[in-house]
């Protein structure tokens, strides 16, 4: 992997034209955001607030209508191939290839960057063992439980030891115990790999539990709040959660509702 990379989002705007009506829909109005190298940022917001569009723009699957995203000075859309092997994603559904075994799914990103076959196998096995799936390397996705499949998906992301790690509602569909366990694993691995991570979620517990920072999106990804979790005591998390909830409910309210800089 390359060194840790900062992310700089400037005046980002994304407008979609609806194919049926021809009307324009503003998914992201104007977003400014800076994320430091190795920082883990949780983005929260209500359904339809532009979180997933932001995720697609971060991956480089969508082109910004205006404004820019720069990761270490390069843009994920314009310099798409530059990020091969540097960026990894974990999605809401595991999105494993059903015809590949757990090991072969984890190997996939290494195959794409041309890692030697022996090393691919070794690294895939090692990551599966770390995620507690050492005994299931040859199992096909349909033979695994939802939690196990998501572990494989996490192993597939971390096998690259990526500079940038993106997760979109990665634990939202799992039961609370499995989700909490995987969140912890995810965070520990992200720290170990030194990845700059963005975790998109609608669950406040998840955002507070994982993020160094919590960025709260309102409608059209309007930045409602930017909270440094480390500046809050654990005992204040309940207040923080309530404040974020209130912000989301008000939506249009000023971000000053929550003190984003403390201390």
């Amino acid at each position: 992997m390359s060194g840790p990379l900062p992310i700089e989002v400037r005046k980002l705007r994304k407008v979609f034209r609806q194919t049926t009506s021809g009307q324009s829909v503003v998914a992201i109005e104007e977003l400014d955001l800076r994320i430091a190298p190795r920082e883990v940022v949780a983005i929260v917001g209500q359904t339809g607030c532009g979180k997933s569009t932001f995720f697609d723009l971060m991956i480089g699957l969508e082109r910004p209508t205006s404004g820019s995203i720069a990761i270490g000075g390069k843009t994920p859309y314009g310099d798409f191939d530059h990020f091969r092997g540097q960026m990894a994603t974990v999605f809401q559904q595991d999105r494993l290839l059903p015809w590949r075994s757990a090991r072969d799914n984890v190997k996939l990103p290494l195959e794409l960057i041309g890692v030697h076959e022996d090393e691919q196998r070794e690294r895939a096995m090692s990551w599966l063992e770390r995620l507690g799936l050492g005994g299931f390397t040859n199992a096909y996705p349909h033979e695994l439980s939802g939690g196990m499949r998501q572990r494989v998906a996490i192993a597939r992301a971390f096998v690259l030891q990526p500079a940038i790690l993106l997760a979109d509602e990665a634990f939202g569909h799992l039961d609370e115990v499995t989700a909490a366990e995987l969140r912890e694993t995810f965070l520990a691995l992200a720290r170990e790999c030194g990845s700059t991570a963005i975790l998109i979620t609608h669950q406040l517990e998840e955002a507070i539990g994982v993020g160094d920072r919590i960025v709260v999106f309102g409608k059209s990804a309007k930045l409602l709040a930017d909270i440094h979790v480390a500046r809050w005591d654990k005992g204040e998390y309940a207040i923080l959660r309530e404040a974020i909830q209130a912000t989301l409910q008000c939506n249009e309210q000023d971000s000053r509702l929550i003190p984003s800089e403390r201390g």
Partner: protein
Amino acid sequence: MHPEGLREAGLDGTLSRQTVLSLLIFAVAWEVMSHFAPALGIPAFAIPSLVRIGQSLMTIAPVDVIVTLARVIGALLLSFVLGLALAIAMYRSPTLESYLHPMIRLFMAVPVVSWILFAVLWFRGVEFRIAFVLVAVCGPVFLVDSLDAMRGVSRELRGMMRSFRPTTLQYFTKLMLPAILPSLITSWKINLSLAIRVVTIAELVGAVTGIGHQLAVAQELFSVADVFAWTLVLVVLLFLLEAVIARVERRMLRWRT
């Protein structure tokens, strides 16, 4: 052949009681009819006895079976490669698709007999004529099935794959082709039975070798026994080829079980 393959083809000796009984009834009815045909005013050669058909089967030259088989497999492989290549090109280029799609629909609407007549009128070489007819008939089936299957690959899997930034070749070899494999195998099954029938008609019209040609000879000689024997060979050949595909399917799609 693998026992499972034989079972699929119904040739492993484990045919159901009903199947055996119905075949037996047909054989007995045929034999009875062959004996009573002259009394009913039907010429004796029109319904030959099972012994006579058996004698015809014994005289069948394997070379004609091999020639027909080679033509079918060769043309199917060519149709598959061309159909898949065009489908990939059309998937990648909507402009190309918008121009080619009407043409493909037109090709698919042309009757097999017309293709055979075009081949006889346009080309000289027998092999080229047969290959042309088979590719014209089977190629579009492979193309349309492949294209539909590629469009059916889930948006989620495509997004996941693209997020890892594969090259175009990797995108197709690691995602698209494995994802559409079940549809491709189904296409092979459909095209196989189609090709066997088409090649027989094509050989009937213009070839000097192959099962179709032997059927034409049998018809000229008014030998119903030979026609029956060659037809039986064709049917068994189709069952065997289907069994081979079924075995390939089980092996390649074992992840589904």
